[in-house]
C-alpha cells in the first residue's frame, strides 16, 4: 500500500495503526478460540500447541499479538476521548502516547515470557 501525500501526517498514521491492528486481531481470533477449544476434547494437542510458546520465534509472534492488542486498546481510548470528551489540541500527544503505551505493555509481556517462561 502506497501512502500518498495527503496521508503523511501523525493522526492519519494513528488511524491506520488502529485499523490494521484491529484487522490482524480479528484474523487471529478464530485460531485463538480454536486452540483453546482443544482443552475439551484433545488436551494433548493443546499442550502440543502451548509447548510451541517456548520457541523464540513464537515468543516474538506473541509479543506482536500483545503489541497489536495494546495498540488497538490505547488507540481506541484515544478515539473515544476525541469523540466524547471536549476537543483538545493535544491530539498528536495522545496518538504518540497510545503507541508508546502499546510498546510498554507488550514489552513487559515479552520480558516476563522470556525471563520466567
Amino acid at each position: 500500500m502506497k501512502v500518498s501525500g495527503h496521508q503523511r501526517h501523525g493522526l492519519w498514521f494513528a488511524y491506520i495503526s488502529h485499523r490494521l491492528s484491529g484487522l490482524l486481531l480479528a484474523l487471529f481470533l478464530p485460531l485463538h478460540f480454536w486452540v483453546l477449544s482443544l482443552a475439551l476434547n484433545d488436551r494433548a494437542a493443546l499442550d502440543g500447541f502451548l509447548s510451541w510458546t517456548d520457541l523464540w520465534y513464537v515468543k516474538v509472534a506473541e509479543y506482536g499479538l500483545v503489541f497489536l492488542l495494546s495498540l488497538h486498546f490505547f488507540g481506541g481510548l484515544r478515539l473515544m476521548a476525541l469523540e466524547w470528551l471536549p476537543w483538545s489540541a493535544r491530539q498528536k500527544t495522545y496518538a504518540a502516547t497510545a503507541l508508546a503505551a502499546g510498546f510498554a505493555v507488550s514489552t513487559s509481556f515479552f520480558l516476563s515470557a522470556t525471563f520466567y517462561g
Partner: protein
Amino acid sequence: MINARLYIMQRLTALIMAPLVIGHIGVMIYAVQNGLSAAEILGRTQGSYFWAIFYGTFALAVAIHAAIGLRAILHEWVRLDGMVLNLVCWAIAAGLAGLGLQAVYSVTG
C-alpha cells in the same frame, strides 16, 4: 454503511471490553511466567463462574465489535455492499461468537 445503531454498538462493546482487555493482558503477563500448559490454564479457569462470565462477556463483545470493524474494512477496501455485506458481517459475528463461547466453555466448563 455504518449508521448510528452500528456506531453505538461499536463504542458500547469497546467500553465493555476496556476493563476486560486490561484484565486479559494482566492474566497473560502472569500466566506466561511459569510457561504455558493446559494444566496451568485449566487449573485457573475450570469450574470458575468468574472466568466463565469474564471471558463469556469478552467473547460476545468482541464478536460484535470485530464484525462492525470488519464491515467498514470490507466496504471501503473490498467494496462489498448491500445484502452481501450484511450477510458476511452477520456470519462473522455469529462465527466469532460461536467459536468464542465454545472456547470459554472448553476451559471453564
